[in-house]
């Protein structure tokens, strides 16, 4: 919970004036510049230290700067790649591949997951085969997909889709199954039909779990994106990582890796933001 949220909760939860005022005072103390820096450092200090160490070590020559180039070189390569436009096409194609696969997984997995969670017989019938598919690494199946779909876009999108499908499906299903039966009973007392219970109780209750699935799937999508682009592709960020290494353009290689990390962070952040909007009522952790 962020500070602002805490403050809001307490203001709503407890209207007593004096309490409110003393809490405001606390917030002001925390807003003091020094403690602000302190808070920043306690959160990002280790990260900054790591980056600093990298930079210094590479400059001083503690390790081979041809293999681990200093950060500024990498940033320059990144800048040239993005602003210069050399990496833009790769970013676009990578986003397209993972985006299409991810959206397809959402469209397929959420309805099926809701359905499976709701109807026991369907769940029982589908569960064994889903477990089998899930335990079979998508990467192991990639050659099969290539045989079936060719070495083009289709097999890449499909392998990402395949891998993202399962976390989302399983989390949606378990979200539905774990809805508190007492809430369902409460709705029944008011005469709610099965459909109404589903719409007004089951789906909202399952949303936090669906988001867990979405975030897992997004991570998986990026993972599989890179893997598929490293095998038999001639474009994409993953391809650039491999290609740069092959041509010994090490700063470019790291630039592509950073780009991937950045992409992952952005996607996760966007999902967290969306989740916070949709599920103000439940705790959301990053």
């Amino acid at each position: 919970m962020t500070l602002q949220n805490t403050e809001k909760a307490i203001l709503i939860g407890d209207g007593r004036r004096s309490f409110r005022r003393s809490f405001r005072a606390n917030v002001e103390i925390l807003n003091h510049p020094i403690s602000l820096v302190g808070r920043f450092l306690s959160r990002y200090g280790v990260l900054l230290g790591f980056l600093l160490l990298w930079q210094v070590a590479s400059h001083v020559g503690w390790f081979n700067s041809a293999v681990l180039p200093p950060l500024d070189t990498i940033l320059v390569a990144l800048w040239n790649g993005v602003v210069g436009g050399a990496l833009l096409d790769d970013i676009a194609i990578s986003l397209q591949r993972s985006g299409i696969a991810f959206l397809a997984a959402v469209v397929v997995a959420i309805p099926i997951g809701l359905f499976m969670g709701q109807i026991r017989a369907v769940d029982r019938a589908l569960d064994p085969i889903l477990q089998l598919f899930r335990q079979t690494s998508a990467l192991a199946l990639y050659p099969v997909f290539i045989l079936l779909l060719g070495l083009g876009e289709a097999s890449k999108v499909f392998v990402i889709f395949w891998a993202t499908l399962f976390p989302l499906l399983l989390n949606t299903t378990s979200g539905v199954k774990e809805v508190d039966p007492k809430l369902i009973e409460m709705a029944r007392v008011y005469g709610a039909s099965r459909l109404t219970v589903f719409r007004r109780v089951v789906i909202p209750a399952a949303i936090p779990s669906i988001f867990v699935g979405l975030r897992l799937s997004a991570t998986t999508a990026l993972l599989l994106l890179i893997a598929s682009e490293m095998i038999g592709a001639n474009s994409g960020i993953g391809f650039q990582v491999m290609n740069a290494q092959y041509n010994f353009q090490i700063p470019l290689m790291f630039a592509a890796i950073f780009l991937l990390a950045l992409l992952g962070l952005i996607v996760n952040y966007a999902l967290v933001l969306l989740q916070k909007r949709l599920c103000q009522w439940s705790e959301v952790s990053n």
Partner: protein
Amino acid sequence: MMTLASDNVRGQVTVRDLTKTFTINQKALTVLKGFNLDIRPGECLTIVGASGSGKTTLLRVLAGLEAADGGDVQIDGRSITGVGRERAVIFQEPRLLPWLTVLGNVAFGLEVRGEPRKQAEEWARRYISLVGLGDFGDAYPKQLSGGMAQRVGIARALTVQPEILLLDEPLGALDAMTKITMQEELTRIWSEERVTMVVVTHDLEEAVYLGDRVLVLPKERGGAIRFLDIDLPRPRDRSEPRFVKYREDLLREFGLH
């Protein structure tokens, strides 16, 4: 719907020869056997009994959440087949939907019954103030205390304006202070709304404080049920001798005094 001319005969419950059997580990457990009960319209009946004596089971059958294995439950002369619009239930836990605000939760019952949202919320606001939560319409359940949450649950049940309100240990999870306040509020609501109330409780003082009659379920299954008429004016004073006497009578029923 409660101001109709036929008001005085609404909310009557008749239970005839009710039997309810559960199966636990392939063994039949008959909880209610040949059970008969008449609840007068507008009455407040409290039910006490040892743990496992079937209080919750009886209430769930009356609510239509549990089907009887034999016998008949009639409300205003008509046999019930399941849940019904003339009944509402208040459980031991508030059972609020955490993603809805207090207003949304209280309006939920009416919305489910097909009332347009605006209208439902208008009614909801009325009952939110009735339970003393007028300022908390926009709060979420996680921002409420236990007693406040339970009051939201009570408001939700009242909003559908039932003839019969079924309560299963509604104040069981509350601390002693909150409990007393809520008992007073329940009495006030009951007299204002003129609803038939059936309250299961394990608190004998509460049974005497709320009830026109106290129903004592027998210890041994199939034994005779007993009633204790509480002939005290309201608001009741817990410390007056007659109140204390009723409480002692109840204790004696359980062989504890």
